[in-house]
């Protein structure tokens, strides 16, 4: 159960955790579209957009360190894109942040915009996953019309990622128990390849047996699920608050 912390936070209880998965998912998607479509020069408004996801995390009691850790894991991909814009776009521009104005390059502004949008949208996304049980999230995706095959694949990925983690953990522990010296790069690489191969073959075998278990219970290629989902007053309130917030930011963006 060393992987239990993956689900731990989504199983907490808070007003945000209790919201309907469909509302949370739709809100995060709409919020992300608004953030992404913001012009690179709107620095002040971008900062205002950050308030919403952080407020949600505070109300939900999700530790900020948990969110930051997950953002850091995927940040290298965006960092390359953001840093490269520093080199390619050196046209001078005037940036404004509230009463302050300063001269910089379009590349710096773009880099800041990419990083800012990434952090804000990722915070909203990690917040969604941290406040919604994965099964509820899958049900919400299905109800919102996400292709059935994708929902099923995600369900299996979620279910079996834990077994792969366990399997990898056991294999590494078995290796550590018999490895008394550094093997050198070539042999380490060979061992690692063998471990990866054994886990891969094991996962194919597992998939075959799972398929057999599914057929044994009448599976004919179509998934049927029973899901009880109800949109309550709190869900409408949450969606209405976000709508007002986005409208207000749009208004501010035009005025300033």
């Amino acid at each position, binding site marked *: 159960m060393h992987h239990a912390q993956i689900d731990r936070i989504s199983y907490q209880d808070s007003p945000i955790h209790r919201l309907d998965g469909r509302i949370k998912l739709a809100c995060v998607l709409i919020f992300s579209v608004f953030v992404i479509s913001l012009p690179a020069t709107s620095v002040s408004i971008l900062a205002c957009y950050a308030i919403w996801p952080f407020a949600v995390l505070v109300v939900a009691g999700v530790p900020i360190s948990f969110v930051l850790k997950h953002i850091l894991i995927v940040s290298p991909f965006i960092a390359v894109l953001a840093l490269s814009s520093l080199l390619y776009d050196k046209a001078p521009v005037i940036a404004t942040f509230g009463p302050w104005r300063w001269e910089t390059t379009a590349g710096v502004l773009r880099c800041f915009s990419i990083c800012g949008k990434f952090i804000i949208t990722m915070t909203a996304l990690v917040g969604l996953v941290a406040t919604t049980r994965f*099964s509820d999230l899958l049900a919400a995706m299905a109800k919102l019309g996400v292709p059935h095959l994708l929902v099923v694949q995600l369900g299996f990925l979620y*279910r079996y990622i834990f077994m792969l983690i366990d399997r990898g953990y056991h294999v590494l522990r078995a290796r550590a128990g018999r490895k008394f010296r550094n093997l050198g790069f070539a042999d380490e690489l060979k061992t690692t390849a063998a471990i990866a191969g054994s886990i891969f073959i094991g996962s194919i075998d597992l998939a075959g047996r799972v398929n*057999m278990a599914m057929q*044994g*219970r*009448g599976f004919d290629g179509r998934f049927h699920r029973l899901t009880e989902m109800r949109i309550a007053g709190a869900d409408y309130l949450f969606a209405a608050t976000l709508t007002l917030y986005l409208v207000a930011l749009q208004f501010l963006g035009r005025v300033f």
Partner: protein
Amino acid sequence: MAGAVEIENFSYDYPDGTKALVDINLSITHGEKVALIGPNGAGKSTLLLAMSAFLKGTGKISIDGIGATAKNAKKIRSLLGLVMQNPDEQLFMPTLFDDVAFGPMNMGLDEGEVRSRTTDALKTVGLEGMERKPPHHLSGGQKRSAAIATILSMEPKIITMDEPEASLDPKTRNKLNRLLKSLSQTLIIATCNMDFAAGLCERAILMDEGRIIADGGASKIMSDAKLMQTHGLEVAAVFSRITH
């Protein structure tokens, strides 16, 4: 009335040519609790798969009078539920409720019936209140019970189980034993654990190298020290005490 399981001259070879089952003849009546015993590689698991219409061999297998062929597979699997050896292979849905409801949903039952069967099955195995838990957060014993619940919810006439007691501690094993004893269905349990088999089944079928070696009363077969040792097994403790 047709027998629960009727097998006539059934043989099956693995794709590499290895003989997995050789000329199996067997008849099991409704309500029997049968232990399929034998050493590793005896063909017990293969025979259970063949009963579920997963393997195509020569000869004939009938489940409740219906031929276990690919054509009848769906019908066969609604009559005979297979509990696999590793519960992680049997539990694949995001929540326990979804997993137990999976079979009844595929049977085309209406929502009320699916909910009622799922709730009853979870109650029978003592997992009520855990409906929303993901299967990977259950303990080993709970996973085993959950795997049984996934089959109970389909209300099959026959339940086959592949080493259901494997990797369970004595307390959980005893609990499982009590649960299986309470079931009214025909039970066919493949196992290497003689104590578990002796405590549960009145009939034993000894297999080795893909063949049926002996078929009869559990006490008679499992107390025959010579027979058991010849086939890499041991006399169950309960019979060992009687013998000495």
